[in-house]
């Protein structure tokens, strides 16, 4: 095991896969010579050269269009959209083209591609550079959605996303790029669609994603120590495919469900999971299902206000400890 940061794990996973398959190519803005504005792709240009690692103009539609066209014709491209907020300028390519092409053509078109994007708040970048838009992606049939919570998962899940035959939107948590953890060396691939039980517990199931996972774990500790509550924390890792099995098993055991999501409140993935539980686990539930989210408001820039908006450890503790 080596200690790698979240950003280093991005480059490690890409390099691992690019070494194996010369058809993997990579493009984006400032990704080659500069190694990415988040420095997550440093070293790839040096190792793989300028025909495989390429800088693009500020043309997100051209980036994703090129990615799609290349994937249709034998390559396995990886694209970087710098901030996930910018998916809005190329959403047509994601939602209308990439996600629908295989289905519309009765299965003729293969799209083995990955779109990486920096996601989420906490960096005080303001409303247009801090959004968590994993729920935008989850709402579109035909695209897989991954959002890892630590460097080890970044390596394993990004490798899996690159190997996957379907289009994957891979959300990297901007606020976590610097965080290190033990990451398996050598070839390391995790399955898509398998949640991680980050902490076992018997009283309440807390479902979280990406930056919300460490907060949920911290809250679970406090809830155990201060309130004697045993929380099971599920790190979803991927939203599509969704590991409903793990959720169902856990809630069947605990009888209580709380979701913690960073996206704004309405129509988030928490609502999807809460609804699944309200249909399929209704008779197992001992208490109302609680969703903890960023309020349905654009994000403020200044630290003090941003911190009020994004779910905090305290809010999780408060909500869980007050559950019936």
């Amino acid at each position, binding site marked *: 095991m080596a200690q790698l940061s979240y950003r280093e794990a991005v480059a490690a996973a890409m390099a691992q896969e690019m070494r194996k398959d010369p058809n993997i190519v990579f493009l984006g803005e400032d990704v080659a010579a500069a190694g990415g504005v988040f420095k997550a792709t440093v070293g790839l240009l040096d190792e793989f050269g300028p025909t495989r690692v390429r800088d693009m103009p500020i043309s997100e539609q051209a980036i994703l269009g090129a990615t799609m066209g290349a994937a249709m014709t034998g390559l396995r491209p990886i694209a970087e959209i710098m901030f996930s907020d910018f998916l809005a300028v190329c959403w047509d390519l994601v939602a209308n083209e990439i996600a629908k092409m295989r*289905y519309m053509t009765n299965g*003729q078109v293969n799209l083995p591609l990955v779109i990486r994007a920096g996601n989420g708040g906490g960096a005080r970048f303001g409303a247009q550079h801090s959004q968590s838009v994993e729920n935008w992606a989850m709402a579109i049939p035909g695209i897989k959605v991954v959002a890892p919570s630590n460097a080890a998962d970044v390596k394993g899940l990004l490798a899996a996303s690159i190997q996957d035959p379907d289009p994957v939107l891979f959300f990297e948590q901007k606020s976590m790029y610097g965080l290190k953890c033990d990451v398996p060396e050598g070839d390391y691939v995790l399955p898509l669609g398998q949640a991680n039980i980050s902490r076992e517990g018997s009283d309440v199931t807390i479902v979280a994603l990406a930056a919300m996972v460490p907060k949920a774990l911290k809250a679970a500790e406090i809830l155990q120590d201060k309130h004697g509550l045993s929380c099971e924390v599920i790190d979803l890792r991927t939203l599509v495919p969704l590991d409903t099995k793990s959720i169902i098993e856990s809630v069947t055991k605990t009888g209580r469900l709380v979701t913690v999501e960073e996206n704004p409140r309405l129509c988030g993935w928490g609502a999807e999971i809460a609804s699944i539980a309200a249909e399929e686990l209704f008779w197992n539930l001992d208490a109302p299902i609680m969703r903890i989210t960023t309020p349905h408001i654009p994000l403020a820039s200044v630290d003090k206000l941003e911190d009020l908006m994004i779910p905090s450890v305290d809010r999780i503790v408060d909500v869980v400890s007050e559950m019936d």
Partner: protein
Amino acid sequence: MAKSTEKAGSSGKYPLDKSQQLELYRIMAECRALQQRAHDLFMQNLVKGTTHLGLGQEAIASAFGLAMRKDDYTFCTYRGHNHTYVRGITMTSVLGEIMGRDCGLLRGKGGSMHLTSVENGAMGSYAIIGAHMPIAAGAAWSAQYRGTEQAAVCFFGDGTTNIGAFHEAINHAAIWKLPVVYVCENNQYMEYTAIRDVTAVENPAADRASAYGLESILVDGNDAELMYETAMTALDKARSGGGPSLIEASTYRHFGHSRADPGKYRPDEEVAEWIARDPLPAYRSKLLSVGIDESELAAIDANTESMIDQATEEATNSPPPPDEIAFTDVWADGGAAWRN
């Protein structure tokens, strides 16, 4: 980077021999029959959903059909029957698709606007304006990267020149010198609005080529042999590393924009003038004038007619697709599951 508002004449660099001429005529005639039949079937209420016909615009797709290599890629729009047909699919599969039959090219899942035949290099018909332009650049990038000397050809309309994706795609193709040929079929209208009313330049594609360091190419899209020469020039350039081309071919659709549109916004004289320049009879006359025997053309016509009749029968007799296929092929594993 020269700018021209004059239409190009023939360079004589790619003369067609007689067999090629007959082949070009055949392709055009078949496209025409297909479009006319699609229209007739619609009038008989046998077409489901919308259709956008390229009747009147066949010379462009046909010339490219003849000029392209089998392994080249095409990208086209919802008005893509001709462009897809010329790559080698059957008439039955087109008629079946617009009639919603199981024999349809996409078994009814895509519909008239999404004809695609990957095995023939027809990489899709796209119904959101402009989207396929950057996608075509991607296919060209793939060909360039793999070193195959394949080219990608991307057909689009005059109206498409005003959307952002047009700009991003052509700049990208130019800076990476991608082997892609962008073909603007200027049929003078977007849906119901004349292109001149909403465009800052007279020739929506040709007058913008210089913004990407490209040559301005403006041709008569109803002149089949000139289109062939234009296609060959651009394809050769693409294959030999010369980068992209942007071609503007002027033409006209004889019918309205889509099945719902009688096309009443167009002045009668304008329609009449363009119908007089119909590319198919024009090419027929030309072939007669260069000494091709009328019987050879008549044989093609007759064969075309029997093909389209047979296709109509096949499609009409084909059942609707089975229910199950509604729930397949979202993912590469053939399924549609989003959960375990």
